[in-house]
C-alpha cells in the first residue's frame, strides 16, 4: 500500500480521462463522529463508478456533499469545473440542473401524479420548453423505464419497483450530465434489482451520463460498475474494476464479498 489513502489499482479502461467530479481531502463530521475522513476520488466522463460499502459507512453523505445538500467541513469538491463549497445559492441551483440524484426512497411527491412528478423538474430546469415538448419528454422518459401506463397514477398506487423506476424517469427527464444513485436496488427483489441495473446501463449509453452509484449490492455493482471503489469507515481503501478490488487478502473487503451472494 502506498502513502495515499486509496489504493488505485487501475485507471478506468473504456472511458475518457476527462474528470467531471474531483474530490480532494473531503472531511465531514456530525458532532463527534467523523463520517468522511479525508476522502479523495475522481469521476471520469462517461463512466459508472460504484461506491461499495456497509450500511452507515458514510456513502450517502459523500454524494449529498457532492450535490450541496450537506456542507463538507473541509476539502474540495469540483463538479464540472465548479467548486461546490464556494458557490452561492443561485450558482448552486444552476449546477444542480446538470446533476440528477436518485434518492434511496425514490422521493416521489405524494400529492402529485406521475405526470406531475415528471413535469415538476422540467418546468424549473428546462424553462425554454413548451408544454407540448414537456409532455413529449415525459412520455419518452416513461417509455425508457417501461412505465408509460402509469402516467396518471398517484405514487401510492405504485409498487416499490415502479416507484424506483418512476423516480429514475424523473431524474433523467431533465437530461443531466451526471447521475448520482443512492442505493438504487435497496428494498427490491432480485428480479427488479436486475431491471434497475439494466436501466442504469441503458441510461449511461443513451444519455451519455457519468454516474456514481452508491450500493452494498454486489450484483448491481458487478453489472453496472466500470470501476468499483470500496468505502470502509469513512475512506476509500481500494479502487479498480470489480475483480481487481476483491482480489485481495484484506479481511474487511473479503468479509464484504463473502456475505453477499452474487451471480
Amino acid at each position, binding site marked *: 500500500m502506498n502513502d495515499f489513502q486509496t489504493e488505485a489499482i487501475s485507471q478506468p479502461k473504456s472511458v475518457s480521462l476527462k474528470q467531471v467530479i474531483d474530490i480532494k481531502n473531503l472531511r465531514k463530521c456530525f458532532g463527534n463522529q467523523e463520517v468522511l475522513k479525508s476522502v479523495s476520488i475522481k469521476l471520469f466522463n462517461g463512466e459508472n463508478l460504484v461506491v461499495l460499502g456497509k450500511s452507515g459507512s458514510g456513502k450517502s453523505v459523500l454524494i*449529498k456533499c457532492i450535490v450541496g445538500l450537506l456542507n463538507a467541513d473541509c476539502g474540495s469538491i469540483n463538479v464540472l469545473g465548479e467548486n461546490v463549497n464556494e458557490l452561492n445559492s443561485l450558482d448552486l441551483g444552476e449546477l*444542480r440542473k446538470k446533476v440528477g440524484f436518485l434518492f434511496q426512497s425514490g*422521493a416521489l*411527491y405524494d400529492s402529485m401524479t406521475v405526470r406531475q412528478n415528471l413535469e415538476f*423538474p422540467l418546468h424549473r430546469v428546462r424553462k425554454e420548453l413548451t408544454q407540448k415538448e414537456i409532455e413529449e419528454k415525459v412520455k419518452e422518459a416513461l417509455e425508457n423505464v417501461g412505465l408509460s401506463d402509469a402516467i396518471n397514477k398517484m405514487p401510492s398506487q405504485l409498487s416499490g419497483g415502479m416507484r424506483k423506476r418512476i423516480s429514475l424517469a424523473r431524474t433523467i427527464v*431533465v437530461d443531466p450530465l451526471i447521475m448520482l444513485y443512492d442505493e438504487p436496488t435497496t428494498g427490491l427483489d432480485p428480479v427488479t434489482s436486475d431491471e434497475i441495473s439494466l436501466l442504469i446501463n441503458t441510461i449511461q449509453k443513451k444519455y451519455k451520463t457519468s454516474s456514481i452509484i452508491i450500493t452494498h449490492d454486489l450484483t448491481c455493482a458487478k453489472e453496472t460498475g466500470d470501476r468499483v471503489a470500496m468505502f470502509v469507515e469513512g475512506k476509500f481503501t481500494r479502487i479498480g474494476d470489480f475483480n481487481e478490488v476483491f482480489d485481495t487478502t484484506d479481511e474487511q473487503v473479503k468479509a464484504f464479498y463473502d456475505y453477499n451472494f452474487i451471480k
Partner: protein
Amino acid sequence: MNDHTLRIKPPPALNKAKKFTIKISDNTIANTVAANNFLTDFADVLLFINRTVKETFSRNFEFREFLRQCFQIGNKTLPLISVTGIIMGLVLTIQSRPSLAKFGADAMLPGMVAVSLIREMGPVITALICAGKIGSGMGAELGSMKVTEQIEAMEVSSTNPMRFLVVTRVLAATLMIPILILYSDALGILGSWVGANIKGDVTFVLFFSQAFRHIDFIDFLPAFVKSVFFGAVIGMVGCYKGYNAGRGTESVGIAATSAVVLGSLLVLVVDVVAVQLTDLL
C-alpha cells in the same frame, strides 16, 4: 500493613455533603443543557421566520402553488367550520337566554351574541379549530416530506423548498383563516337565530337587524386584524414543525401534534396581546 487499612472511610457528614454537591451539580448541568436547548430552538425559530419573510419578497413567487394551498385550506376546512359556527351560535344563545331573561333583557340577546361572536368567540374558537385541522395537516405533510427526502429532492431539482412549500402555506393560511373566521361568525349568527327560535319566534330579518344594531366598526376591525395574526401563526408553526421534523415516522406524528399544541397556545397568546391593545384604543 496492606492497602485496605490505608483507605479510611470519610465521616458520614462528609459523604452526605458530597452527594448533595453532586446532586446540585447534576441539576445545574441539566438545567444549563435545557436552557441551551431552549435558546437554540428559539434561535432556530427566529431564523426560520426570517427566511420565510425573505423568501416571501423574493422573485419567482410560486403563485400556482399558493392558489392550490388557498383552495386546500378553504375548501377542506369549510364543512368543519360550518358545523363549528352554527353550534357556537346555538350554544351561546341557549346558555345566555336564561341569564338575560332574569334581567328582562331578552331583546339584547341578538346583539350580545353577535358582539361576543364577532369580537372574541368566533375568531378564537375558529382559530383553535384551524390550528388542529390546518396546523396539524401542514406539520404532518411537511414532516412526511422531510422523512421521505421529498424536500431534498425539490432542492436538487433547483426548486427552493422554502418558497414552494413554506411561503405558500403561510400566506395561504394568513389569507384564508380570516375569511373562514368571518364565515364562521356569519353561521354563528344563523345558529343563534335557530337557538332563539327554540323557545321564541323571531324572523331572521328581525334577528339579524337587531344583531347588527349593536355592532360597530370597532368590533370588526380588531377581530379581523387579530385573525390575520392567527392565520400567520398557525401557518408558521405548522410549517416550522413539519420542515424541521426529525428522522423516522415517529417524528411525523410528533411534528403534527406539536404543531397543534404550539399553534393553539400561540393563538391564545396573540389573543391576550390583541385584547390588551384593543383595550388601550
